[in-house]
């Protein structure tokens, strides 16, 4: 049998172990089996990827941009979840704050998530700056730099943002649309008091990143395995529910340009 494909993922939650064990079980009956390594943060994972310790990295958009920058544009995005397509950030505001768009943020306090989260900090701050609203100059940022290194995966900073807006410590705040939609559907937020008022341009979120050293055959065998997961199959469904997707889709290197610009402007990549 061929050497199993070694995949890297970040243990942002104990359930990461369950998810990747399920994936390994699923791939056991496939032509190319899978093994995985868990990292405590994305920076270590990107390093390990370039060191050749892992063949594929399950990367956040921030980790992808860092990897792509280091690879001089030769990295490939093999696949992603359906929920990684056209991700957006939301500006949420208290109903009584007078904020109904980014241009209303002047003089306000804005709750912002972890500094390495694309959706809860890097991108919205970048888009606001493009609209002429700079943090520290036009509005005051109330920052929640939680779980730095996990690029916002844990969602804890976004929950703090929603809390700060709900209880009036901030007039407005920024969150990813996935967290926001989950809070709305689980009624974890008072919809009368806090409303979404602005949506960012769409960007792609996580992807399975490959470097040129990975053979096309091994990459294809991995992608074929993902695509064979059926949400109607109870075993695959468990994994997919835990990872928050209904189906895997082909990767795309588009829609990361704004994030790369934002990270460059914020000094995160050269």
């Amino acid at each position, binding site marked *: 049998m061929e050497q199993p494909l070694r995949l890297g993922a970040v243990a942002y939650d104990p359930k990461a172990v369950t998810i990747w064990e399920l994936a390994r079980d699923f791939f056991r009956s496939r032509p190319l089996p899978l093994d995985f390594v868990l990292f405590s943060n994305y920076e270590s994972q990107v390093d390990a990827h370039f060191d050749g310790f892992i063949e594929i990295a399950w990367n956040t958009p921030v980790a992808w941009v860092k990897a792509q920058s280091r690879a001089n544009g030769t990295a490939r995005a093999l696949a992603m979840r359906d929920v990684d397509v056209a991700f957006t950030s939301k500006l949420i505001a208290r109903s009584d704050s007078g904020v109904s768009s980014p241009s209303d943020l002047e003089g306000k306090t804005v709750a912002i998530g972890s500094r390495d989260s694309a959706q809860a900090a890097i991108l919205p701050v970048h888009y606001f700056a493009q609209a002429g609203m700079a943090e520290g100059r036009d509005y005051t940022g109330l920052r929640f730099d939680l779980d730095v290194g996990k690029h916002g995966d844990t969602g804890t900073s976004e929950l703090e943002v929603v809390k700060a807006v709900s209880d009036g410590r901030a007039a407005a705040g920024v969150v990813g649309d996935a967290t*926001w939609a989950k809070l709305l559907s689980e009624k974890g937020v008072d919809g009368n008091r806090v*409303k979404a008022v602005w949506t960012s341009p769409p960007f792609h979120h996580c992807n399975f990143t490959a470097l040129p050293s990975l053979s096309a055959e091994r990459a294809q065998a991995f992608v074929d395995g993902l695509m064979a997961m059926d949400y109607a199959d109870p075993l695959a*469904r*468990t994994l997919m529910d835990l990872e928050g997707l209904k189906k895997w889709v082909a990767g795309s290197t588009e829609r990361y340009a704004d994030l790369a610009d934002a990270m460059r402007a914020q000094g995160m990549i050269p």
Partner: protein
Amino acid sequence: MNPPSEVEVGDLDLTSGLLLLLNRALDQAKPGDEVVVTGTDASLIHDLPAWCRISGHEYSGSTAGEAGRTRHRIRRGEAERLNLPGRVEWGAPLTLRGGKEADTRDWFVGRSAAIPEAADPSTGFAPRGGMVERGAPAYPFTLTERDRVWAAEVADLYEQATANQWDASRDVAWDRRGDVPRELEQAVCQVMTFLVENEFSALYVPAKFVPRIHPHFQEVVMFLATQIVDEARHVEAFTKRALLGGGGIQYSVASTQLSLKSLMDQEEFTQASFLLSVLGEGTFLDLLRFIETNAPDPVTAEVVRRARVDEARHVNFGTAHVRYFLRGNPNHAEELMRAARARRETLQTIAAPSPLVQDALAVLAARSLSPGAIRSGVSAVKGLMGEMHENRVKRLVSAGFTPDQSEELSTMHTPNFM
């Protein structure tokens, strides 16, 4: 593909009920169908696309209309909210008996009517006739074959059981014991002690099997639940009668414990039901009638009479189940014969009923310790044994055994009665 379905949500947002209405429409739609949500909440333009994205649907845009009403177009994705194998159809209604009563005997209607020949352990506690989502865990039910649990008359017996419950604290005329001579009171206490230990076995044995029975045989589970409650009440009533005159709980003998333990050790429901209910409780009907006839006081007579009515139902269920199990299958009769023979082997050291119980029954029949009375008391107990044998044979024949098998089975039955 169907024409778009329209969902009017007024001023609802995602936290106040919009999703309930939207999900109902999406559940009815097919993948690719369009659902149009019309509402006035301004945040929907931000919230619906986000919700669609994480829920596997496609938000395809909005059109502003009059009076702040916006139409949001959603294309249903492929993923099902629940992983169901199909949809339930509207069934047949339950007909009320006499226009008033929802009787269990009448509830075999629609999808719930089909009693499966082999039940599927992965349906868990989901009721018979329902649709179960895929991916549920398998339960450790081992009694999944209809032949191994079912009785044709079970719903009827369940109705009888629920209609005939009684309260051992208040329904018995406990204050009517009157004066009972000490030797007779002592005999009553010894008999009550024996009854309590036997009733414990009649409670524990069915209780042991309930968690093993697949819930799609729910009438059997429900009937056994009444049997367990009945036995608890008998334990209660017989204990109270023993305590009533001050004599209290008396002696237990090893042979009784051995006999009852051999019932607890049964691992097959049909065999246990046969040995306990048909043979054991069946024999008990004659014993309880004997005690009632010879009771020195009305309280003793009443508690054994009430218990006998309940026991008759348990015997009827056991007999009905064995009849169902045996119908047209000689191998099944042989299986039960083997179980009875194996129990006989286990109990070979027991040659006679507990001497203490035998003596107590004779004293009750004698009504005094005078030699003449004792002679007739001892003779009455001998007569009881003969009667027990004859009635057991009749019950076994009615359960479906041949007369020869019935004779052999009755003769092998434990001298301990139960």
